[in-house]
């Protein structure tokens, strides 16, 4: 049996994220009172303490804030695919999201590189948000 990617274990606080990506939508929490976006999911807004929020679709656009190139040691399932570029993307909505950067070599990645989200199926149940350089 080939090694598999560890799967997310959703809770009531974040299951809507995973349901959305399975439908092909990238949604994050947004405060219903002050309109600020947030990630990771939290039951209250850290800016205004409101507990009202919705799961709104984000643009999927952002820039590389920082990154690493995973070379190992790591879990066997990732070791098979190194070098793996994983980045922190500062989304246009002002929140940070960590994801693998596809279609970009370790030599091409740089700070502030514009990127866009691409939804990538992990299995029947889960779809991950990954990124690739914008306008390619």
């Amino acid at each position, binding site marked *: 049996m080939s090694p598999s990617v*560890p799967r997310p*274990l959703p809770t009531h606080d974040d299951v809507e994220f995973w349901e959305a990506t399975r439908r092909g939508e990238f949604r994050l929490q947004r405060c219903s009172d002050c309109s600020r976006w947030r990630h990771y999911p939290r039951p209250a807004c850290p800016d205004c303490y409101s507990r009202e929020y919705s799961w709104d679709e984000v643009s999927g656009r952002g820039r590389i804030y920082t*990154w*690493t190139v995973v*070379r190992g040691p790591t*879990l066997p399932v990732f070791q098979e695919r190194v070098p793996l570029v994983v980045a922190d993307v500062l989304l246009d909505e002002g929140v*940070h999201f960590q994801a693998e950067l596809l279609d970009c070599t370790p030599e091409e990645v740089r700070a502030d590189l514009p990127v866009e989200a691409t939804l990538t199926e992990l299995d029947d149940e889960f779809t991950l948000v990954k990124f690739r350089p914008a306008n390619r």
Partner: protein
Amino acid sequence: MSIIPGKAAVVGIGQTPFGKGLGRTEYDMGLEAILAACEDAGISPSEIDGLVRFDMESLDEEMLLSALGNPDLSYFIGTPMGGGGSASVLVHAALGIASGMAETIVCYRSRARGKNSSFGKAQNQGGRYWERLAADLPDVSGMWHVPQGLVTAFQEMAMITRRHQIEYGTTEDHFGEVAVTFREHAIRNPNAVMRMEMTLEDHHQSRMISDPLRLFDCNIETDGACAMIVTTAERARDLRQPPAIIRAGSLGAGSHHRRLSTLFDRSREEDSAARTGKRLFAQADLSPDDIDCAYFYDFFTSLVIIALEDYGFCPRGEGGPFVADGGISWDRGRLPCNTNGGQLSEAFIHGFNNNLEAVRQIRGTSTSQVEDCRFALVAGANTDPTGAFILERAS
């Protein structure tokens, strides 16, 4: 005003030999270190009435009580947040003493967590944490990091390190300088596991693990245990060793590297280490200039550079030039750091080996002794909610 300053002292230190794949349990090594610390202090284990446990520790109160003849514990507590809590143990011990909850407190850490240290699949059988943590995504951040390939602490640290480079132009030479300096210290220390000479070139040639971190930027993987005995400053005067008085101890919460989104949402000035440092110096009524040597949580070279900034030893962004000038070297530096070789070269006991070395500096028994050492600062991991303390030589 804090009740901590001057009330408690470290009076005993003990450890096992450090090494790779020692083939011992954490239980066995932990007991060896604790008994050695009691012996060093000149007290009986039956006198222990307080215990501070590191939160990732598998050796628990019940296991210890059953092996130590059931001492009467009136105070027991733990430190949260992994490496962030490595120095906090002494803060909690100082509080336990100063508040009167206990009179003789043991703090300990035992680790068999190297690549070849596993005896089986259970968490208490040793081996690499991340290989198991990653498999079952036990915390809230796991589901956001691990499926994307961000599995280990060093990959998260690599991202934090890269950001420091982007903002301040910190270089590989700066990282290498930390590794080479701490290796120089380790070569002088017979307890250290890594004692082969290292040049800047060796550092740059070492294999890339997770860009920009190379193998020689990472803490070593070792087994071993460390323990300390803390008691009242008053009683310390009558014991066997020169006391290391706890002059100040502080804690500070902020973001955690396993949650990079919230970590990058904050400025470092509003994060755990900077907050801890400000409180520490205020409580001690000292400034960074007063400190004779420091022990930063050197899980990665770059985090030492950032810690120098967090604790105010240099302005933000100037940690790289600070180390490039030899600033952290035992014989050349304005602030000798990790004179034992630290976790990069002596051993990785979750910072507890650095705690012990700070006590040796105060006693005057380090293999890289700082002349007339009066104040030693020790800090926990600066990318977690953390803690720090300052030890003082009794006058």
